[in-house]
């Protein structure tokens, strides 16, 4: 059952999270993540879940880590600096093979690298999904919990100020449903004394023998898991008009929606422009980008930073077509928002200038 309602992005995502079975949430206030925390604090007690106002982001991610070991769906999140503080744990949670959803409500688009490169230490990656608007955020929130549970890995939902604070009419699933069954690997204490008590560790579950346990074997397993994710997770992508496009424009997130609109308008006025909007940012939809670019003379990348996703676009196209950067940082005086350059005439002008 699903109700249609006019909801702020943060509330819609909170409802979608609880509907997906999330039963533990924790965070530390920071704009524009704060409202998500507030809505979770209001919603979770209604389903006997737990929401904690953590004393810091370091503690938030630690609490979420602990909750995740019990097999209940857990989530946390933050913004830029707060996410930076969490990276040490996100790396280790990935290696401990724990499901966790992380809501990254970023300020602007400067944190693409932080989100997709594995911002912490070590050789790890986790799934990243970037919705363009509130309805898509609702869908991707559900998907994030499903993927986290299925692959036992952190999944990041990368939103922004615009997404967190915009009201849109959305269909929100009811929060009355049951949470998914607790999986077999989860801890509850019951295997203690059995001779084979469970351990969940970023260093693997080896047993200390005469020689110590084999850490190398564990890291080899972690590497194989990353490869399996890359091969097994079908990256989502939104593509339009690329078949006969002279210029393909790539963009993601809220900004991607504006770019898509600009492309639609330019098409209407006869310009052979196509667009591609990666929705899954890791694993990056390289094949889709390559296919979209195949018939074109050029790819242009619009993102509101100094050029981050453009690296992935270049790697996907591998020199087959020129890739030009038409974005740039865009800050309003508050420093919080997506910035003033998210306006369609300006975007259209940049696209036209880039036309081959």
């Amino acid at each position: 059952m699903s109700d249609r309602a006019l909801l702020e992005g943060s509330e819609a995502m909170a409802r979608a999270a609880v509907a997906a079975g999330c039963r533990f949430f924790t965070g530390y206030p920071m704009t524009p993540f704060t409202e998500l925390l507030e809505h979770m604090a209001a919603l979770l007690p209604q389903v006997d879940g737990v929401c904690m106002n953590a004393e810091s982001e370091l503690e938030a991610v630690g609490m979420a880590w602990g909750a995740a070991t019990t097999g209940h769906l857990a989530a946390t999140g933050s913004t830029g600096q707060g996410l930076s503080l969490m990276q040490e744990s996100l790396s280790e949670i990935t290696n401990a093979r724990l499901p966790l959803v992380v809501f990254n409500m970023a300020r602007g688009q400067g944190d693409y690298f932080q989100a997709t490169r594995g911002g912490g230490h070590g050789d790890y990656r986790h799934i990243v999904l970037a919705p363009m608007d509130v309805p898509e955020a609702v869908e991707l929130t559900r998907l994030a919990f499903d993927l986290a549970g299925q692959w036992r890995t952190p999944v990041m939902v990368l939103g922004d100020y615009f997404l967190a604070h915009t009201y849109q009419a959305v269909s929100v699933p009811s929060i009355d449903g049951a949470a998914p069954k607790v999986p077999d690997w989860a801890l509850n204490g019951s295997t203690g004394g059995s001779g084979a008590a469970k351990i969940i560790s970023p260093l693997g579950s080896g047993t200390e023998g005469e020689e110590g346990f084999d850490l190398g074997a564990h890291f080899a397993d972690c590497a194989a898991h990353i490869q399996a994710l890359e091969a097994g997770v079908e990256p989502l992508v939104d593509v339009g008009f690329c078949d006969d496009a002279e210029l393909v424009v790539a963009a993601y997130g809220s900004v991607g929606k504006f770019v898509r609109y600009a492309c639609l308008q330019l098409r209407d006025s006869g310009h052979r422009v196509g667009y591609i909007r990666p929705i899954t940012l890791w694993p990056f939809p390289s094949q889709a980008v390559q296919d979209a670019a195949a018939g074109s003379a050029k790819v242009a990348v619009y993102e509101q930073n100094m050029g981050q996703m453009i690296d992935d676009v270049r790697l996907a196209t591998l020199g087959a077509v020129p890739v030009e950067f038409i974005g740039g940082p865009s800050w309003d005086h508050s420093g919080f928002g997506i910035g003033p350059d998210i306006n369609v005439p300006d975007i259209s002008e940049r696209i036209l200038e880039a036309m081959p």
Partner: protein
Amino acid sequence: MSDDRIFISTDEPPAESAALVDDFTPSLITQANHHLCPGCGEPIAIRAAVEAIEELELAERTIAVFGIGCYTAFAHNLDVEVVQALHGRAPSVATGVKRMLPEGFVMTIQGDGDMVNEGLQEVLHAAARGENITCLLLNNGVFGETGGQMTTTTTLGQRTKTSIEGRDPHQHGHPILLSDLAATMDGAAYVARCAVNNAGNVARTKRYITRAYESQMAGAGFSLVEILTMCPTGWFVDTLEGPDYLQDTLAPVHNIGELRTP
């Protein structure tokens, strides 16, 4: 003393190899051959911790969250469920576990470097919240695992690799007395400090740990047992001098006793 005392000479290797007369390994330790140094106090403390779990029949509801230090080796040696946390972060991880499993028995095992340096805010916040978990602090006044550098619990005058002439308050500041600090928190139900440098203190350690566990099972709130442990390697003293060094260096500053009871 009677004259039929047995003297064992250690000048030469024994003529016969030692025979195992009994297995004293607690049932919740799966592998007694740990890799910690001879004379280390940490295995004694961990032994007391698991014996108390067994005696209170908590094994089938225990989740132990480990910090990072020499004691971490035991994470893979115990027959209770374990979560390995990051350096300093065990109290938050234990919080997440306990909130989702309120019927479980949830504890942390951390060192002074882990709990009092890297993770000071975590343990104090958990104490202030009255989080119903038990934290065990193995305090040897040094970073043992990284080779004997100064921690915040190193006492004044104590020589370490990073306070070579002894800890000088003007240069290195003063030690943090973690249990005394935690005992001021209203959320703390039970706070005590003990040591493992002699048989009496080992017995006291077990007693304090048992009381802490009981306080958690009664739902009283946060509990902390700080255990002073020998680290002859990190102190650069002979193995046999460890217990006396503890008595002379750590114990006069980090006072033994119960600091807060329910």
